[in-house]
């Protein structure tokens, strides 16, 4: 395969991987602090994207239209709104069920996901139909042989990268990050250290959900189209990514995200059969990985007290 095409595939893979990773990181953060899976995460991505779209429409009602202003307002609106939503979910759905079996939390958030998804479909104007999403980033591109390098893709990758690095910094270099990691390590000790457990949990959910909104906007800018269903798909993939990476490990989530995108791309390019099978292939590999590494690639320590 000629180099340009190869580069093109790598680019496609990177873009997908970045979106998956951003979603997966959310799952892993939540699991870290509360040992729960918040399955509505994927649909928070959707709602985030639609909030941003609404903000865009609003701006144009008001007669603004500078792409950069749009972009900033959309991101801020989406991320803040989702951060708030995330906190509400944590406070009123996830934390009350802490004593119940883990499955109940999984189910209640799955159902919440359905509520969010259906609400977008039913209550957003024409929410059942795919929505065009504005292309706000500069569209200039250079042709390198059969590889078409677009500025907007590069910008999105860079932005995504920055967010991930920023998150790393937040977790490893700041007091807040220390507190989050302490809670993730051991709730009791964290409490005794005088850390406000509830507050930390809420903040973590806010951060994770904000990331989801970011991923949502990115998804919209990349495909220039969003629909109420994107969340289910992104959510499941993000979840799988976090799981194969190994829950509770940020690196695991990122690894998982790019791994999954890689699998899909490989599924398209190298496999003998039709490219449509790429998801079948990817999910089959996920199942295989679970059989091989039941607790993910970056193993999570589990010890049972007998």
């Amino acid at each position, binding site marked *: 395969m000629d180099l340009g095409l190869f580069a*093109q595939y790598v680019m496609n893979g990177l873009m997908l991987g970045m979106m998956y990773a951003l979603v997966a990181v959310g799952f892993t953060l939540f699991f870290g602090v509360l040992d729960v899976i918040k399955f509505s995460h994927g649909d928070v991505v959707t709602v985030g994207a639609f909030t941003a779209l609404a903000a865009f429409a609003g701006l144009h009602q008001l007669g603004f239209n500078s792409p950069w202003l749009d972009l900033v307002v959309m991101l801020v609106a989406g991320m803040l709104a989702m951060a708030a939503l995330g906190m509400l979910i944590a406070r009123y759905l996830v934390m009350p069920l802490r004593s119940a079996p883990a499955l109940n939390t999984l189910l209640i958030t799955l159902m919440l996901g359905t509520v969010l998804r259906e609400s977008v479909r039913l209550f957003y104007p024409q929410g059942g*139909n795919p929505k065009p999403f504005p292309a706000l980033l500069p569209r200039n591109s250079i042709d390198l042989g059969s590889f078409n390098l677009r500025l907007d893709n590069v910008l999105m990758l860079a932005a995504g990268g920055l967010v991930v690095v920023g998150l790393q910094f937040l977790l490893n270099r700041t007091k807040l990050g220390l507190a989050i990691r302490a809670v993730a390590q051991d709730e009791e000790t964290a409490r005794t250290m005088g850390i406000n457990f509830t507050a930390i949990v809420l903040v973590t959910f806010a951060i994770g959900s904000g990331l989801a909104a970011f991923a949502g906007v990115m998804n919209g800018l990349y495909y220039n*189209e969003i629909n109420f269903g994107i969340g289910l798909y992104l959510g499941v993939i993000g979840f799988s990514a976090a799981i194969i990476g190994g829950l509770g490990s940020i690196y695991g989530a990122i690894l998982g995200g790019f791994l999954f995108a890689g699998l899909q791309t490989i599924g398209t390019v190298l496999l003998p059969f039709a490219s449509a099978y790429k998801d079948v292939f990817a999910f089959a590999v996920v199942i295989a990985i679970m059989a091989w590494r039941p607790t993910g690639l970056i193993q999570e320590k589990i010890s049972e007290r007998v």
Partner: protein
Amino acid sequence: MIRTGKIITAGLMAAVLVLAAGAANAKDKVKVGFIGPLTGGVAVNGIGGRNSADLAVKLRNADPKAKYEYELVVLDDECKPNVAVQVATKMAADKDIIAAATHYCSATAIATVDTYHKFGFPVIVWGAVLPDITYRNKYAEVHRVNGTMINQNDANAELISKLGYKTVAVIHDTTDYGKGHNEYFSKALAKIGKAKIVGTFGVTAEQQDFTAELTQIKALNPDVIYFGGLTPIGVRIRSQMDKLGIKAVFDATSGIVSDAYIQGLGPLAEGTLAFREGAPTEKLPGGKFFIEKYNAQKYDNPPEAYGAFAYAAMDMILNTIEKVGPDRKKVIDDLGNVKDRDSIVGKITFDDHGQNTVAVITKYVIQDGKFVEWDESEYASGKRKLPGQK
């Protein structure tokens, strides 16, 4: 699993009731049905059809000479075969509903023909273009007022060849609709023998990311990308072509002839080709009348490409019931011999498969955000040029 469409909207219901009250001498109520996609990517076409059928019923109920009081039962097939079979079963199983105008999406129409046959429920298809819907079996219950996709693909292949394009890559959705387009287009193109197909890609109707397929197409570097599918993925594919810097002509079918396609793409829609059987609504015999009446009702959605056919189908059903009475068997018998019946889409004649023959094909190109007839477009006049147009 069990899914059914949305029933007629409350407002519509109210309207019917009011009319019922208004009617001086209370006539017998007769239920007739409409099925189309009211949600999902092609909803605008479904709603356009729904409104047109509703218009036919309203006008009839307003007509004092009408023998019966009609109530329109509307169900949503979401353009999904499984949902379509469920709503079709629901409607056909309801003995009070005499006949129906059904389906915009071929995938749903072909899935339901057996159901209608099983329940002996007479239907007239108003928008789906797959030939098999009428020709695969010989069901007395199934008829169609609009034409099939065969002629439009002939016209399509002819134009592509005339414009001097040599290589075509085909993308089609893997429902019977997309497969059908792929089949008939390939045949037509081969028959002319000027251009050849360099690659064919089947994609699922819910696919989001096409960069993989398009990257492979980019390697093949065709002059034209033929697309056999409906608006939603049409929009995605066209915009992702741009992402990958693919310059080829986007040559589509009747499946994207709707304003939603243009709204979804904005400037990117410019220069997309599309084809549709039947003359543009305003040029139909009853076109003026239809458009007038339609606008008078202040529906919040245009009739779209197939609205006129939906009106014609429903109007024919109503005429038949007026003539032979509300009895499925009798209706089927009467629709069995339809010859040169007047309608707003012109004279309708069903062949032995219940297929109306529509000769005219309209060629469209999108110019300045509008579907313009090719021959009247600046592309035909040479004022503008499609990529690589000779």
